[in-house]
């Protein structure tokens, strides 16, 4: 996957200092809004294989 990623866009550099945010919700209000949408509408019912 990463190989393909490098072809598509400039390589994204991993910065271990950012790992402290990996399990922290930085935008709680936005996430709450997204959660509302998810609970109301669920995941879109799209079958990729039929695209």
């Amino acid at each position: 996957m990463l190989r393909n990623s490098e072809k598509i866009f400039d390589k994204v550099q991993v910065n271990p200092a950012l790992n402290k945010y990996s399990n922290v919700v930085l935008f709680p209000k936005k996430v709450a809004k997204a959660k509302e949408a998810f609970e109301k509408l669920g995941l879109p019912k799209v079958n990729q294989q039929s695209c």
Partner: protein
Amino acid sequence: MTSFILPPLPNTMKLDRYHLEADDPFTTFYFTSEGPKGKISKVVQFTSFSESSFYNLAMGDYNPATGEIDDMVVTDNGDSEKVLATVVGAVYNFCEHFPSAWVYAAGSTPSRNRLYRMGINRYYEIANEHFILLGETENDWEPYVKGKEYSAFIIQRKLVDLDYEKQNAS
């Protein structure tokens, strides 16, 4: 066995953008905007909140002095196109690592939502080639209609059938 891979990005999408850094799971991205207001740190985060493949996309300004993140601020650093292109780069990269993810995006303000919509509309053909684009309506998701106002969007990277590609290449 059928193999799927994400389709390559055409050169037309090689837009000017900022250098991106990411955490190890590739869910939090960081870049620095540069403009008349100086250097402004930006954070992009993809957050899942259930066992599903539903992720929220959010971006905000990071204040290194206080450690606070503000997603309501209007930076006005004269580089909104470049910032948008950088966020798109983060979306592509995230989707490389989470190919089945649905990425939900809603602007913090109507004006920011309009900016996102303008970005999608401008690059609609390319975006539509690479992503399933849906708009949020009152009761459902619907295929994104160019020019229509949505309160939020949701996208998923399209997959390409490699076997089909091989058959057509030979």
